[in-house]
């Protein structure tokens, strides 16, 4: 299982021109954490974050998470340090804790909800519209952060195609 996870991670790193964790112990621990989360939730959520077990709410932290690109850009590593920049891969000493970018409101909302939001039978995956910049995303829940203008999830509304 852990070998499969390693392949998954290394393939993804390769495809996105990232490098994997240069600290061998940390790398093993993170892979094991991903395997554990895959087993308990059914998807590989971030090992260094508390998942809720509700996929709609955890969607943004399924590895590779939606915060990875911004974090590698700014800090040279993702929040866990599983994916790093070329510079950090060559100088492992630069691996260090970075601030959490994910808004805590998502976990709190998930913990309060206790169950998945219900989609009516036959209903399609909803489209969400960022009220700030107009960005549209089709997914079960609103994105935690607008990838275009960085507005938070609560600025998204369900978008209706009806012209009425």
């Amino acid at each position, binding site marked *: 299982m852990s070998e499969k996870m390693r392949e998954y991670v290394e393939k993804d790193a390769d495809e996105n021109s990232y490098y994997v964790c240069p600290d061998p112990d*940390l790398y093993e621990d993170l892979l094991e954490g991903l395997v*554990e*989360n895959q087993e308990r939730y059914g998807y590989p959520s971030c090992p260094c*974050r*508390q998942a809720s077990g509700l996929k709609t709410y955890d969607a943004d932290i399924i590895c590779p998470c939606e915060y990875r690109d911004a974090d590698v850009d700014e800090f040279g590593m993702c929040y*866990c*340090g599983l994916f790093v920049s070329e510079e950090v891969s060559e100088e492992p000493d630069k691996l260090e804790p*970075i601030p959490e970018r994910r808004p*805590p409101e998502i976990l709190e909302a998930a913990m309060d909800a206790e169950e998945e939001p219900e989609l009516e039978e036959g209903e399609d995956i909803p489209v969400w519209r960022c009220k700030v910049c107009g960005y549209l995303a089709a997914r079960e829940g609103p994105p935690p952060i607008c990838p275009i203008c960085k507005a938070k999830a609560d600025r998204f509304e369900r978008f209706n195609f009806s012209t009425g």
Partner: protein
Amino acid sequence: MDAIKKVEGDKKDHEVKLFALSTCGWCKKTKKLLADMDVEYECIDFDKLDSDEKKEMREELKEHNPSLSFPTIIVDDDCVIIGFKKDEIKEALEG
């Protein structure tokens, strides 16, 4: 493994509480550092709590660290270290 447990150590000068996740690599590093320093502490593996305990502990964690991130180390109920900041942890516990 218990979700909340006391980890024995010879150094007991401070009351140390660690909020961790069992799957998190940086939390593991923190546990190892505390073990190497022989510090006694209370370890909370947040992901292993049941859902009622989680809600209770979330409030406690939030008071100290509103971003709800791990590891969070609380020393004597007032000094809060967020993340595996090795030097800060050593200073808080050895100083």
